[in-house]
């Protein structure tokens, strides 16, 4: 689904446009259930919404039409409860080629190339069946990208789970990671990064968001439109089955003919091999010039792809469901229109080019069937063996969904937590060293090697920076140019203060990109929340959007699309508000990419940015005290922008030997990672670090203040770096020196001295997740 952040907000057309009158109106189909208020309610439509549907139609809708409306006016497709707020997001910049509203956003990355990118949630399917749910999530996001004409070159993800000591969480986590991996690996797309958080706030509702980056020559961009009256609609790819038919709850007997209820599974199974074929075939089709539009049959399948393509081009479509290749017998129009079977596309072929299209698909052992055509009627018209079963004005279907903006208020429980005095918890119960090892060994901070080694990270030979550092960097094939990407959202921060948390997610994602030497360019987002019908969720959503707006505007990283996932709750308990940010950036020369690990003994270590010691919402409080409390770190946007500009300038001058941002787990985590280096290939070094800040040891080592990066450079470049920082007005101080391979990490503060052996840190940092998962 397209995120209508800048939605064109078309007012619903009054009544059906002219032209439809000459065609016969659909009649109820034999076997259709009667439309009752209960049936309408089961379809997730309010009485008011139903009244509006009747006004649009000028009559009672048929059962099939009701299904179509229910899908298109669902939260997922219609953005009922988010559209108005999303319009506040900045969406423009000179480099934005395609903003919100398409399958994926597109930006100009220079050298004649464009980058298509998008993130999407698959939370609920992953909670039901983690392996298939996650796998099909990857499939969907790949299709969103290659339907723009771009070849997928990298995937990322953002995962949030409950605590790993719970067996079901381990099952979900293991299944999701395997599902993401197996699917992307088979299609042959390297994974370049992501994030995983564990917190009890996600125990019943895991968050599984998948992101994809794709590259194309600028002139190859194609959109999901149904242009050209008389052009041909073709269903391409896998056959349509009864999978994932939209969430109506009535008895199954009314739905299907003759089949038992077990034949309508809610789970969709992914077929990555078919996806790979579909990817190659689609790119070949687009390059052939035989087609004018293409779109994934994703959520709400044929319905949303057909209606959206017509809606975008102001045309109509007419299709006959009897022509759609099906996997099962006896499927009704309702089922065919709403099926969410995977690995399918809707293609608009130029009239007369159908055979050429079929030929390309055949090469890839796929089917392409003509199912209808583009019309001038402006309506979404569906036949079954020539008999009309649905005829709906397309524009109101796609743009006429009623939107709501409810007033929300902060929940009292959250306010209490945020305002809680955390001072009593600042003293670590078992001493500083114990606290250090527990923070570094907390699954949130510890290495995600166990995760990303299940993903192919090197296929296709362009992975410049693989998972494990700040942002992934992928080279544009055949050039020296690279694109960087990072996904970020600290759900604890957004829970305690959605506005500051969302700003922080944008700031952190941009900082991660900047640390590699790439310029942050644009954002895709995935907004994972509870029920929008609740006041405190509305409040969270609004605040998060506003925080994202401010940060994206200030950092000049417009939002080009994304996804909203509401109703992430179980038994009335919602997930933490989790606005995941997927940030992309560009670097001109991948040889200049900056890595995160310390390199050579004797190199000076500098801290860019100021320590303020923010412990609110920190990993320290959670790992040592089980607390989610306090005011999370604020974002100083001007300081953040200066820091990022400064680091980019340093990278461009090739003054940096390493750069690593400070996030979860504070300086303790960052210094540990810098010393340990990459697993398997890296070389651990020690460091001698000394802080003089007038902060408590805990605040200094574990504070998660934004706007900080740990750098190293060659000894002779230290002065230049300091002068640079002064020019940008960014605090910068030398905090220490890199020491010998395998030497300890030694930290001195005004009140303590710590000496952490390399082997101890390694065991904690690399060992904890494998130990839990292999138990």
């Amino acid at each position: 689904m397209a995120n209508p952040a800048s939605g064109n907000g078309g007012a619903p057309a009054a009544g059906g446009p002219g032209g439809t009158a000459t065609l016969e109106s659909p009649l109820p189909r034999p076997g259709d259930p009667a439309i009752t208020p209960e049936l309408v309610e089961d379809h997730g439509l309010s009485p008011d919404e139903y009244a509006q549907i009747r006004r649009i139609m000028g009559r009672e809708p048929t059962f099939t039409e009701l299904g179509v409306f229910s899908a298109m006016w669902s939260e997922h497709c219609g953005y009922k409860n988010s559209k108005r707020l999303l319009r506040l997001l900045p969406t423009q910049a000179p480099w934005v080629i395609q903003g919100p509203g398409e399958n994926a956003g597109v930006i100009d990355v220079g050298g004649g190339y464009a980058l298509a990118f998008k993130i999407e949630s698959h939370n609920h399917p992953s909670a039901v069946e983690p392996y298939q749910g996650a796998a099909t999530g990857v499939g969907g996001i790949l299709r969103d990208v290659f339907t723009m004409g771009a070849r997928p070159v990298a995937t990322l993800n953002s995962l949030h789970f409950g605590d790993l000591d719970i067996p079901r969480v381990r099952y979900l986590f293991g299944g999701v990671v395997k599902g993401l991996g197996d699917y992307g690996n088979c299609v042959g797309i390297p994974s370049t990064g992501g994030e995983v958080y564990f917190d009890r706030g996600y125990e019943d509702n895991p968050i599984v968001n998948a992101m994809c980056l794709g590259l194309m020559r600028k002139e190859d961009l194609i959109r999901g439109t149904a242009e050209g009256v008389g052009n041909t609609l073709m269903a391409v790819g896998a056959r349509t089955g009864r999978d994932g038919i939209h969430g109506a709850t009535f008895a199954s007997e009314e739905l299907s003919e003759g089949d038992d209820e077990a034949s309508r599974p809610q789970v969709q199974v992914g077929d990555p091999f078919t996806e790979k074929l579909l990817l190659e075939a689609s790119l070949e089709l687009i390059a052939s010039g035989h087609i004018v539009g293409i779109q994934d049959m994703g959520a709400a399948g044929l319905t949303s792809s057909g209606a959206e393509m017509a809606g975008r081009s102001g045309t109509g479509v007419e299709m006959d469901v009897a022509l759609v290749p099906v996997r099962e017998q006896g499927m009704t129009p309702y089922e065919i229109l709403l099926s969410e079977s995977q690995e399918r596309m809707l293609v608009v072929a130029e009239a007369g080019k159908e055979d050429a299209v079929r030929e390309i698909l055949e090469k890839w052992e796929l089917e392409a069937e003509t199912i209808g055509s583009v019309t001038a009627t402006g309506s979404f018209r569906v036949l079954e063996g020539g008999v009309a079963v649905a005829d709906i004005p397309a524009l109101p279907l796609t743009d006429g969904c009623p939107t709501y903006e409810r007033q929300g208020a902060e929940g009292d429980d959250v306010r209490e937590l945020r305002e809680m005095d955390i001072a009593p918890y600042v003293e670590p119960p078992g001493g500083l060293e114990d606290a250090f090892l527990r923070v570094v060994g907390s699954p949130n901070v510890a290495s995600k090697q166990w995760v990303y080694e299940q993903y192919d990270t090197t296929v296709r030979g362009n992975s410049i920076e693989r998972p494990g550092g700040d942002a992934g960097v992928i080279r544009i094939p055949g050039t020296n140019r690279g694109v960087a990407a990072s996904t970020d959202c600290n759900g604890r921060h957004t829970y305690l203060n959605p506005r500051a948390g969302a700003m922080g997610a944008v700031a952190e994602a941009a900082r991660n990109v900047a640390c590699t030497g790439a310029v942050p360019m644009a954002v895709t987002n995935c907004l994972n929340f509870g029920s929008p019908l609740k006041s405190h969720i509305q409040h969270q959503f609004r605040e998060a959007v506003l925080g994202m707006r401010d940060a994206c505007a200030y950092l000049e990283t417009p939002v080009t699309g994304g996804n909203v996932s509401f109703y992430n709750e179980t038994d009335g308990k919602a997930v933490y508000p989790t606005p995941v940010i997927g940030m992309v950036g560009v670097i001109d020369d991948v040889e200049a990419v900056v890595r995160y690990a310390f390199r050579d003994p004797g190199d000076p270590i500098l801290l860019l940015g100021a320590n303020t010691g923010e412990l609110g919402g920190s990993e320290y409080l959670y790992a040592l005290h089980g607390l989610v409390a306090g005011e999370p770190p604020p974002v100083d946007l001007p300081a953040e922008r200066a820091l990022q500009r400064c680091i980019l300038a340093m990278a461009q001058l090739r003054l940096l030997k390493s750069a690593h941002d400070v996030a979860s787990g504070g300086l303790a985590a960052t210094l540990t990672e810098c010393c340990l280096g990459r697993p398997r290939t890296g070389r651990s070094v020690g460091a001698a670090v000394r802080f003089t800040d007038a902060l408590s040891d805990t605040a200094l080592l574990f504070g998660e203040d934004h706007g900080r990066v740990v750098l190293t450079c060659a000894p002779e470049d230290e002065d230049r770096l300091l002068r640079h920082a002064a020019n940008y007005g960014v605090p910068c101080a030398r905090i220490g020196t890199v020491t010998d391979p395998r030497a300890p990490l030694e930290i001195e503060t005004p009140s303590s001295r710590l000496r952490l052996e390399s082997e101890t840190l390694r065991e904690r940092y690399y060992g904890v997740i494998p130990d839990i998962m292999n138990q």
Partner: protein
Amino acid sequence: MTRFTVEVLVTPRPGLLDPQGKAIHHALSSLGYDAVEDVRVGKAIYLEVAAATPEDARERAEEMCRKLLANPVTEDFRITAAEGDGAGR
């Protein structure tokens, strides 16, 4: 206690896409086996269990299936045998 071999067959639920079955079907067709009309692929699991009676062995196996061996969302299971040692090897 005797040792029994319990054969557990775990199959994808009807209606669910079975990409593996589909691919094998496709391969068999291109090898000329046109008479094959459908293929579905599941798992065959052989458990060597110490139990007092065959029924006992089956019962335990059934519990294991529900708990671990089969995924109730996507798979059905059948317990087809509880014989002496080493069957199904």
